[in-house]
């Protein structure tokens, strides 16, 4: 999915293609997601992050179609800026604020998988630690105490940081919705699909998403 200012779309397409799937770019101004089997809202700076990250993007015509796709059980993953867009669109709870330390951070972090029962983590083992890059200024996840309690009770904290880099509450790096088909996370699995670049640990994550897409498409 491409908003003006999005910049990770080609990387996501490249990553899913390296896993044998095909990717197509959806345009923010079109009120449809077409015939896709899964949607990724990629990273970048949609609408320049003006006003607040994701705050303008949530009003794009395509977001209505994404909400309908998600409501129908379609797998939707928001990465980094895409996570911010999904929280603004209320498809996921909570919000992302500026990092503790008020500094942009681009680095590879250790990410612990907390639940395997989501469209992004079904191929992982519980407690598995993956090396996945982060790249954000506003990645400090926050939510109120009731929401946090619900996320815990309902096993909706998808992944956490081993060494919290940004001050996120409960070390949260990613969460999912009640249906477990919408996942948002700050780390970039598409940046970890080739050991030549330092890590291939993103492959089980995106592979899980492709499994979910195949399920939805009715392919055994």
């Amino acid at each position: 999915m491409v908003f003006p200012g999005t910049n990770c779309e080609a990387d996501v397409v490249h990553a899913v293609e390296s896993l044998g799937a095909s990717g197509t770019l959806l345009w923010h101004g079109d009120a449809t997601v077409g015939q896709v089997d899964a949607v990724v809202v990629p990273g970048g700076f949609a609408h320049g992050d003006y006003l607040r990250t994701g705050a303008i993007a949530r009003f794009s015509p395509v977001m209505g179609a994404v909400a309908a796709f998600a409501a129908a059980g379609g797998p939707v993953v928001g990465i980094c800026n895409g996570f911010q867009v999904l929280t603004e669109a209320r498809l996921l709870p909570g919000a992302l604020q500026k990092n503790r330390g008020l500094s942009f951070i681009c680095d590879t972090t250790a990410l612990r998988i907390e639940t395997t029962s989501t469209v992004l983590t079904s191929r992982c083992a519980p407690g598995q630690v993956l090396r996945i890059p982060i790249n954000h200024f506003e990645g400090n996840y926050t939510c109120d105490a009731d929401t946090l309690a619900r996320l815990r009770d309902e096993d909706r904290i998808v992944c956490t940081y081993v060494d919290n880099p940004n001050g996120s509450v409960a070390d949260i790096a990613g969460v999912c919705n009640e249906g477990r088909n919408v996942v948002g996370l700050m780390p970039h699995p598409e940046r970890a699909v080739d050991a030549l670049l330092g890590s291939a640990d993103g492959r089980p994550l995106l592979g899980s998403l492709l499994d979910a897409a195949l399920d939805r498409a009715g392919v055994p």
Partner: protein
Amino acid sequence: MSAPVPLHRSLGLTDDELERIVEILGREPNGLELAMYAVMWSEHCSYKSSRIHLGRLPTEAPWVLVGPGENAGVVDVGDGIAAALRIESHNHPSFIEPYQGAATGVGGIIRDIFTMGARPIALMDPLRFGDLSKPRSRWIAEGVVSGISGYGNAVGVPTVGGEVVFDATYDGNPLVNVLCLGVLPTERLVLGQASGVGNLAVLLGSATGRDGIGGVSVLASAGFEETEDSAKRPSVQVGDPYEEKRLIEACLALLDAGLVVGIQDLGGAGLTCATSETASRGGVGMDVDVSAVPRREAGMEPFEVMTSESQERMLAIVEPEGLAAVQAICERWEVRATVVGRVTEGGALRILDGFDGPVLAEVPAASLHDDAPKYDRPRRRPAPPSPSADELAAPADPAADVQALVADTSWIWRQYDHMLFLNTVIGPGHDATLLRLRHPVTGADTGRGMALTTDGNHAWCAVDPRRGTALVVAEAVLNLACVGARPLAVVNCLNFGNPEHPEVMWQLSEAVDGLAEACRGLGLPVIGGNVSLYNETAGVDIDPTPVVGLLGLTGPIAHRPPGAVLAAGAVVLVVGPEPEPVLGGSAWGRLRGAPGGALPTLDLELHGRVAGLVAGLVADGALLGVHDVASGGLAATVAEMVAASATGLVADGPDDAPWWFSESPSRVVCVVGAAVVAGVEAAAAEVGVPVLRLGTAGGDVLRLGGFATLDVAALRGAWQDRLPSVLGSGTVSG
């Protein structure tokens, strides 16, 4: 009462230059015309002090597609792919307004690259700041890094490397250089020229405001009077990475669709430069309707519109029948597109108030470039720096000196997105950056790599600008070898003081000769450059600081280069000649307050063999760690490897400061498994390169023979803390 300053002088033109303009026009220029000549004939745009020297650089090679003079140099990198490369400075604006100065430097260089039809894929930032004990130096460093982070990350071009130096010579004048690399399908190469009488000049991007008026003449072509010249802040432009990101996508879409005849970015000297350059390169004229230019505010004068350096603007030359398609693409990307000019016969650049309205200015377009003055300014060799480091006593605490010479730079590059586009095999913090070479349109992976490095060393160049510059080129070549690459092309950014000082002109001329000699000796073409003069404050010039950017290529990347690390149990070798025991311009000499002395000699032929050997060893996956010996000598080189890998080293060597701190060139530390040592030695012997067995990695101390012993944990802690302990938290806005 003193007489008022004549207009031409207040615009930065000399009396002689005014006379010349009168000669060209055959009449007195009006105010608008004077303003246009003033910006185009400024040092920044015309290179009037340096042009006669730059002609001595070698610029040709069979793989060069575009050499100096265009927006960027372009080389053929195989598989139907060309690489566009450019380096620039944004020193003066960054001193006044660090965040915006650095940010707009990034924006400007990116436009230079996509102007050539290339997608920008990588930025590098060589930075030089003053002594970190001074609050203003810290403020500038934090602001510049934030500006690069804020703009570069949001515009969606990864910053994959650079370098940083802190030294008192930059207290009053930081150096903020920026290099950009782009890739394009070879057949899409476009040039910034207008052609086809009747074609339209379409202004793309931001509205024009009052920011950056006189940036090239007021700011970049004069020194600073005091250390805080805040009155010049309005001459600094303000950047908008979101506008630039849309502009990149729109322009590349226009080029893909074959809708533009020529395209040119608007940078220094704004519309005046873009219109006159495209016209004179195409051998045509242009009518410009200044009233059509979209403005940010009412009441702007024509001279303000024509010289504004408002950012994120491009000028596209399009055929009239293509205009509707151009506008449709721009609308999709929410980029403003306005017809502001028409290509005309003859060579006149006319500025009109409405295409049928009154003529406000009329000058020969080419005269703004070709007729700019060229000065052969007087040159005089300055007194060499003193005292001499070669006369220093042995250090009282050698371990403390070694520790003081190393610093982890990750505080800086962790703030930059250095991974976008999935090309970064080896990123910042290493000798050179290694990127996968993929086709810019199809994404097809060639399997090969492109390597990039930037290097400079003011300390060497202060001692001897000629040999110092040659040593800088040599170091860049070894840096590429450390990621398995062989060099292909050079770009340079010549940062010097006030050219009206004969000592500075001597340094510039010598540095150009040193650059030319090294490039000739190593078979490297110079494909582009930038000259930044007037780097002075209160009459004090910076040390001469030529910075080179070097692009190289690797074969198929079968092994990830190991980086500057040690591996416990491995054997540590030094590949290359014994060091000359000289310390002139060495980091240790400067640490001890002795910047003078003799520079080591450089044997280019031997150097090329060392570089070729190391590149081959890295490409074959024979090494477990690799790092070239440069600033700080062998002592600092192995200390950096120890700190980065938290692994000790027991090294043999004499109890002799020059042996450990000499920056003698053509040496690389190679870390190998015990079983591989004999093979490496045999390969080196075959090409006549000496190899020294330095020691064995492992343990929790770094022992430099009988000279010094350091605790690994303490060294690593000091290395990590050096920047964070003084530079606050990092990105502060944007």
